[in-house]
């Protein structure tokens, strides 16, 4: 019965209900088709997930938001959010990015969350999954901490740079290693670091520009000319690796961070 259901993750192509009544129906259909995750009397997820879900619901109530409104604000699927709040998800269905997006939508950094859905020490770490020539970057809890800090800082003015895990992608000519990746809003790595640039940093505008930057190598040499696609949430960008092996995507919307994928251009 569950064969036709997509994998349950924040960005899965779940139904997108337009009203609270539609959401209730989708939740009922989803739970009925998929079954309940737990084996205990409650048949829900582990206690950490149940407690986190109840806390998320209480924080949503405090914010005066319905499930659909909060899901929109967090860029999560409303069905996913409903299952999360009801403790009907298991740890593998609770990536750190979903927790971070929810925290930001509730106006909290990750350190301000009263609890997390993970046992202490079991918070997700950075991970890369390869599928059909694409590499999906699943940022861990620690990597997302500065992102959530920046998203909740006054006027979003906090300066931040987050390291991305290395990725290896292949095309007809062999493997390309994309490493030393960063997403951030500090002075652009390709900008000259002269005094003028530093003054710009100190007097940074209220909403700093974000970028993704990395080095691309093929057989240890700059992979000059290789085209790389970045998919970040609903954003799709292409950039060509320069002669120094640098790869740069400018002006990305940091809020729209999930899913985060890289692929070689065609």
């Amino acid at each position, binding site marked *: 019965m569950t064969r036709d259901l997509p994998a349950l993750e924040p960005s899965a192509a779940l139904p997108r209900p337009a009203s609270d*009544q539609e959401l*209730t*129906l989708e939740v009922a259909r989803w739970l009925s088709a998929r079954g309940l995750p737990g084996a205990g009397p409650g*048949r829900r997820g582990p206690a950490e997930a149940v407690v986190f879900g109840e806390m998320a619901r*209480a924080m949503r*109530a405090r914010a005066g938001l319905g499930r659909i409104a909060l899901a929109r604000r967090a860029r999560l699927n409303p069905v996913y959010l*409903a299952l999360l709040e009801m403790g009907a998800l298991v740890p593998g269905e609770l990536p750190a990015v979903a927790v971070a997006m929810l925290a930001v939508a509730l106006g909290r950094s990750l350190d301000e969350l009263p609890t997390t859905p993970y*046992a202490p020490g079991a918070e997700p770490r950075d991970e890369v999954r390869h599928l059909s020539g694409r590499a999906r970057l699943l940022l861990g809890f620690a990597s997302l901490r500065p992102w959530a800090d920046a998203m909740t800082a006054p006027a979003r003015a906090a300066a931040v740079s987050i390291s991305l895990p290395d990725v290896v992608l292949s095309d007809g000519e062999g493997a390309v290693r994309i490493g030393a990746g960063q997403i951030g809003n500090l002075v652009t790595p390709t900008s000259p670091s002269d005094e003028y640039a530093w003054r710009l940093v100190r007097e940074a505008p209220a909403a700093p520009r974000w970028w993704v930057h990395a080095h691309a190598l093929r057989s240890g040499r700059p992979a000059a000319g290789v085209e790389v696609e970045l998919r970040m949430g609903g954003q799709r960008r292409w950039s060509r690796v320069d002669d120094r092996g640098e790869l740069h995507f400018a002006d990305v919307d940091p809020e729209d961070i999930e899913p985060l994928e890289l692929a070689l251009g065609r």
Partner: protein
Amino acid sequence: MGVGDGGAWAAWSRDFADGREPGAFWPALLDELRPLPAALLRGRPHEWEDVLQEAVLSLLEARASGRFDPSRGTVTALAATIVRRRCADRLRAERDRASRHPVADPPGEAADPGAGPEEAMIESESRRVWRRRFAQAIRELERQDGLRGSCRAQALLLRHREAIANDEWSFLRSGRSGEIVPWKEVAERLGISAEAARQNGSRGLRALRDILAAQADRGEEPE
């Protein structure tokens, strides 16, 4: 299918118990239930669908654990009972809150109407510092629970979740807060007895106070 279709609901109840309810089952069931929260939770329309979603989950839990027997009643009757109970829980919580805070300030907001942007920023910063301090202490308690095999932090969080979400920290001193979740509900969520939930929660509160006091003695600032 309407309210009077008892025979049809009896057949659908058997289908539901066997896990093979037809596609029309859920829309029809929800249509049957929808008037209930609307009548019981008047003036709180934003909660109606939350209650129904929770009822769906409880219904599926009842089926999964073999607690639904279609020969003893229809699925609509059980679902209606669940919805009524959920509504009653919410009304009771609302009454508790009203009786404890007859004239409550908006939670977590600056109480001084004359406060300017600077005061608001200080208020906001202080709130964030307290949230971090609490979260840090809870993580320490969770870590200790992991070693001891207890669930003190979880019981405490469930019991005082409304206060925590509202940045109301008075329960750390007195154990009382604007809205306290009954031990029975805490126990249900954790799959333990009400007495075990009470013991874990009470011990958790004492341990949390000790952790916070130790943090203060060491002069630790939240990370």
